């Protein structure tokens, strides 16, 4: 089974802190994604990566950066956490190409910024 693992289920951070959310997948997927989930807004794409060291901005990249130094790991970085970044963060991965199109998700990280 494909497994996407997020490093923390719950996090509480202070305003202004630098926050790292880690995601690891074990199926050699080329594509990895970070989404933010808020009630009534669904899943909004923050960043995605289609290869090591390659990244593209999603719909809401402001206040976030990402790092993909190894194929299996995709990190989301909040440079200076703010209370409006309190949210559920979901990591996902998928294969490149037109077959096997399913995205696999991690269990989510509930981040609270106080």
């Amino acid at each position, binding site marked *: 089974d494909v497994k996407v693992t997020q490093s923390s289920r719950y996090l509480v951070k202070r305003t202004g802190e630098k926050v790292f959310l880690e995601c690891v997948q074990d199926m050699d997927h080329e594509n990895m994604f970070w989404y933010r989930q808020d009630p009534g807004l669904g899943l909004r794409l923050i960043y995605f990566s289609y290869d090591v060291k390659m990244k593209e901005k999603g719909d809401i990249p402001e206040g976030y950066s990402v790092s993909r130094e190894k194929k299996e790991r995709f990190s989301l970085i909040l440079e200076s956490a703010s209370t409006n970044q309190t949210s559920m963060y979901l990591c996902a991965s998928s294969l490149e190409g037109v077959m096997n199109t*399913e995205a696999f998700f991690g269990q989510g990280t509930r981040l609270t910024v106080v």
Partner: protein
Amino acid sequence: AQTVTQSQPEMSVQEAETVTLSCTYDTSESDYYLFWYKQPPSRQMILVIRQEAYKQQNATENRFSVNFQKAAKSFSLKISDSQLGDAAMYFCAARALSGTYKYIFGTGTRLKVLA
């Protein structure tokens, strides 16, 4: 740009009954995939069903089926013989067949199953 719209924030269904969740989308892509994902209260998002836009036949997976109307850009999910375990958030999503492989999600529908 692709957009996905789910107009029903919440739905309820009696156990063993049938319910249909609605989804519309807009895309300029000629080929794409459509998905329904389920997010139970434990939060792990899982795939329920997928539809290739170039296939006219509606996808089915056991009690789950879709009604795909390509011209109308509509992609509804029908759950038959609803079970208590079907209670969850359901998200409709779209992904282009080529180019960047990002998934665009709707805002979700919370399904309650009444015993």
